[in-house]
């Protein structure tokens, strides 16, 4: 009986560890953002964690049950719908590195996050443009924004923007960045913005996703991380219209649940 259990466990592990390529999960955490990234070598990164502990259940669905570590946690900016689930994540998973924009907030959830990071003893760094986080030999995260000290900025303006690259495929993760930051990025290096998958800014609010920006990004898929019937009316029709105009296929966490995208380095594949 015991031996049988061991065999089952080993086969489960073999199956769970048998992965290929980069996997990106846009987790269904209601109104908020949470993106789980697993590189082809098994290294993991969590970008935001939604408003509450629902992220834990979603993470459990994306990871094998015995895996209790996440290598990198990135908090795009200190708003509840992005960091509300993080204190619970630190309570349950061992995290080595924390990346944040470098702005504090005096909200209860930010203080709890701050305390959780300190207690976990994780290394903390401020994201700055040009930084490259190597998840594996071939998968890296390139920070596009902020490029300056944002400690006194408003939270959404300070939001980290990053590009996840694996071979010829790339994902642009916008946090809650508004249009003015999008336009600033376009003015800096529009060539670098062309991606396969765009996580649109601010849950599809019309304050983000300007036409010019979406045009330069020209993604194949756009992800809108949003809660059903949220009180903000996200995503706004204007944004959907712009995306449709460019022929982008829209994937929404409120309609599709967790959106899982795989990349083999050449092409991206969507499966729900």
């Amino acid at each position, binding site marked *: 009986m015991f031996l049988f259990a061991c065999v089952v466990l080993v086969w489960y592990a073999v199956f769970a560890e048998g992965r290929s390529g980069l996997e990106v999960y846009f987790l269904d955490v209601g109104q908020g953002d949470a993106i789980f990234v697993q590189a082809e070598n098994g290294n993991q990164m969590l970008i935001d964690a939604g408003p*509450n*502990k629902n992220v*834990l259940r979603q993470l459990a669905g994306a990871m094998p049950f015995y895996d209790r570590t996440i290598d990198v946690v990135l908090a795009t900016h200190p708003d509840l719908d992005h960091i509300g689930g993080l204190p619970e994540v630190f309570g349950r998973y061992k995290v080595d590195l924390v990346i944040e924009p470098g702005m504090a907030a005096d909200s209860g959830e930010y203080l709890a996050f701050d305390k959780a990071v300190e207690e976990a003893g994780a290394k903390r760094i401020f994201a700055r443009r040009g930084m490259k986080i190597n998840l594996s030999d071939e998968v890296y995260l390139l920070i596009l924004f902020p490029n300056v000290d944002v400690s006194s900025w408003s939270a959404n303006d300070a939001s980290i923007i990053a590009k996840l690259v694996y071979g010829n495929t790339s994902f642009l993760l916008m946090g809650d960045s508004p249009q003015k930051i999008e336009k600033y990025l376009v003015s800096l290096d529009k060539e670098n913005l062309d991606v396969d998958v765009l996580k649109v800014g601010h849950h599809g609010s019309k304050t983000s996703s300007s036409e010019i920006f979406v045009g330069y990004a020209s993604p194949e898929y756009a992800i809108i991380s949003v809660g059903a019937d949220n009180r903000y009316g996200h995503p706004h029709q204007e944004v959907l219209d712009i995306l449709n105009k460019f022929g982008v296929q829209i994937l929404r966490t409120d309609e599709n649940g967790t959106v899982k995208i795989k990349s083999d380095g050449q092409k991206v594949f969507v499966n729900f």
Partner: protein
Amino acid sequence: MFFIIFFAVGIFTGSFFDLSVYFGLLFVFLALTLKLLKLNFNNLVFFVGMLAFGLGFSWYAYEVIPPDLSDFQIGRQVLLEGVVADEADERENYTRLVLEVGSGAKILIYTGHYPKFNYGDKLKISGELRKPEKIDDFDWPAYLAKDDVYLEMFYPDIELISVGNASRIKRYLFSLKADLLSNVSRVIPEPHASFLGGLTFGAKQSMPKGLQDDFRKTGIIHIVVLSGYNVTIVADAIMRVFSFLPSFFGIGLGALGIAAFAVMAGASATVVRASIMAVFVLLARATGRIYEITIALFAAGFLMILHNPKILRFDSSFQLSFLATMALIWVAPIVEPKLKFFPKKFHIREFATATISTQIFVLPLLLYKMGLFSAVSVPVNLLILIFVPATMLFGFLTAAAGFVWYYLSLPFGWITYVLLHYELKVVEVFASLPFASFAIDNFPLWVMLSVYAGYAILIFYGKDKKIF
């Protein structure tokens, strides 16, 4: 016995009418007058019934007189100081705190998850006081009043003044429970960990809403809502598993299991009440003296409703555990011989007996309360309850081993995970069946009461007339 029943009827009736103490006393007075004038045809039953009804009615009316709220400026911005009087109740998007402010009145506070506050924290809050209001048909104010909560405040500014202002023992129990839960959540992922928390430690922090709905649909929600119903069933299971031992040890282990659960669940009034009733099941089984035990059970119930008459109508946990206890004492012996087709191995037949008899007995109450009839309730309960004692045991071992060494808790955690995974799968599969549940919108009170009256007649008169 008769007195108790009519006392309860009095309380129950009283809970529907907003009448003064004197209305109840009128019945007492009438009863006494009739007795004195010997106009009651010397019918003792009539006299006692009327007297008890009147007393119960008065007692309820007396107990629900709300404290003087005139000191509180309802609808205004106020600044108050108080002590957190219970565990924080973490919901999906907010946390609820019960704050006791001086004069015995309690305020229900809605706030964010962070910062976290604990039992015994002294807080200074500023916000707008409101009176709770009825939500559709649900009498939310009366429900809150059972715990002496008469006011609400939404998202006040909160300032922590000091910690540790309440019972040291309770504080210790709550923090023990929090530590046990955190040990569990370090090895077991979600939603399994939350499920185990509700099952084994009576944890209030809720499972995701969708999953809760599935539990409701399959008629198994009772095992996670701190109903005390699971205490009864688990105690019963422990007893049966150890039935090969001399009955003294069986009862001892059963009682120990119940006490352990009560302590882990924070020994709240709800859990203590349920645990006391669970002990009666053990006694009934061990001694076989079901009449005496029934009387003792009623006496215990009487003391409980005397202590807080509001629970009779508004505390589902009290109702469920009382009914489940009655079912195990009375219905189980009737049902058991009819379940011969269940194998005796692994105590399957015994679990089937316990499940089916309690299900029969609590069904009308559940229909009245939730308006949802689960067609798959019996198989789901059977498939799950058989593994509940083992799950609780390994869950507890996981949590306890976590205090010693993280890696020691891993193997226990994985065994628990497998059990939990199986149980959640059962819920998921059955909940996805198209005919899993039917909404029954119209199941009025009188139907429920008549069904129970029918049960009582069937059991007592159908079997034996000695009870009265």
